């Protein structure tokens, strides 16, 4: 009942002991990034939602095998991505990027109307460039930069080594640069 702020390791430890409240806390903590990862992998919001639900249920069942002290998020996102990919495969869909760069951003970071207009064009160029990359290049950039995952998390989600994430990121940036150039503003 008491919802005191606890560091994640403590919450995970409590969840492993069967504390459902702690697990619910973990679900709420991570469902945002889990949904986005699933959306990228599944390519469909409904499938992504279902994949996230299944992944959280499966992760709970597998908590006994989760190594104490290990970071929880990469472990979870790996399960999420696998679930989402399985759904995409069973639906017979190809992975596709359905990104839309918004015209409005909230908060103090909102630029002036003039720069917004310019930036908006550049954003469209970047999104278009990402869409034109091949899947392997695109997925590493989307995970690293748009989902803002760390290298370890990206490696877990894509099922590759961390070094592979590094090299793929570097190559994918080169290919994107060839398509969109580099903003010098």
């Amino acid at each position, binding site marked *: 009942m008491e919802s005191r702020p606890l560091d994640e390791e403590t919450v995970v430890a409590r969840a492993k002991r069967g504390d459902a409240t702690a697990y619910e806390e973990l679900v709420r903590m991570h469902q945002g990034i889990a949904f986005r990862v699933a959306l990228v992998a599944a390519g469909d919001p409904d499938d992504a939602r279902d994949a996230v*639900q299944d992944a*959280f249920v499966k992760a709970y069942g597998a908590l006994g095998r989760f190594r104490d002290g290990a970071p929880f998020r990469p472990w979870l996102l790996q399960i999420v991505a696998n679930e989402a990919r399985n759904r995409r495969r069973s639906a017979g869909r190809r992975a596709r990027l359905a990104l839309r*760069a918004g015209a409005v951003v909230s908060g103090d970071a909102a630029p002036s109307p003039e720069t917004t207009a310019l930036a908006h064009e550049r954003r469209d160029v970047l999104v278009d460039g990402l869409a034109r990359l091949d899947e392997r290049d695109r997925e590493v950039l989307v995970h690293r*930069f*748009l989902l803002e995952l760390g290298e370890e998390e990206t490696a877990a989600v894509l099922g590759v080594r961390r070094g592979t994430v590094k090299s793929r990121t570097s190559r994918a940036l080169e290919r994107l640069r060839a398509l*969109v150039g580099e903003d010098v503003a």
Partner: protein
Amino acid sequence: MNGLGRELQTLAAWVEWPETPDVAPIVMERLAVPPPPRVRRAARRTAIAVALALVATILAVLAVPPARTAILDWLGVGGARIVRVDELPSLTPARDLRVLGARTTLEAARAQAGFRFADPPDGETAPDEVRVARGLRVSYVWLGGGGDVRLLVTQFPGSVGDPALLKKLAGESTVVERLEVDGDAAVWLEGGPHVALFLRPDGLVGEERGWLAGNTLLVDRDGTTVRVEGAVERSDAVDLVRAMRTDHSFEG
């Protein structure tokens, strides 16, 4: 980080993602099942869980009337086992207070009860009646203006050998939520009817049909199950259980 990398990072703030659906309620509902295996091996609750699993297998055959009723999932707390089914037996709320045993005083209840139970809150929130059934169930009853039961707290031992609550059947519309009350495992059932099933001393299955149409909180407190039933909010039920103290010496 090169310039293009920084541009992509900036782009992240502009990407319009679909709104994240809140999956927590449905995930927790689907997880209304026993804790992971490691937990079930732990300590005192192991024996209860294993014994209940055996008995409830029999009960599932005996006590779920419609043939097409399927057990969807279950969880256990203390002496109670909650089984979610897709169809409930028909509910006829019991209205005869004698089902709860003879009316008595708290002192007499302490002498009669063969298990350790918590005292009711005192003062203005004290119950209207204390009842003991065969020394194995202690009930506190709060009455409404018309003499109807407004709130009911029942305590019984959590061991299977007693005629304790063995399982509750909860319909699909019932919210079943695990929680903790001061570190004790608890379950909250809200928004739908449920039926309680008991194992009687003669080995037959007794059934308690939804005493009250309200919500239910079950708390496993030191081997005794505390059950709160009534038209109460979760927080009120939790506060009530917290206000109940087990500080008299048990001689049983």
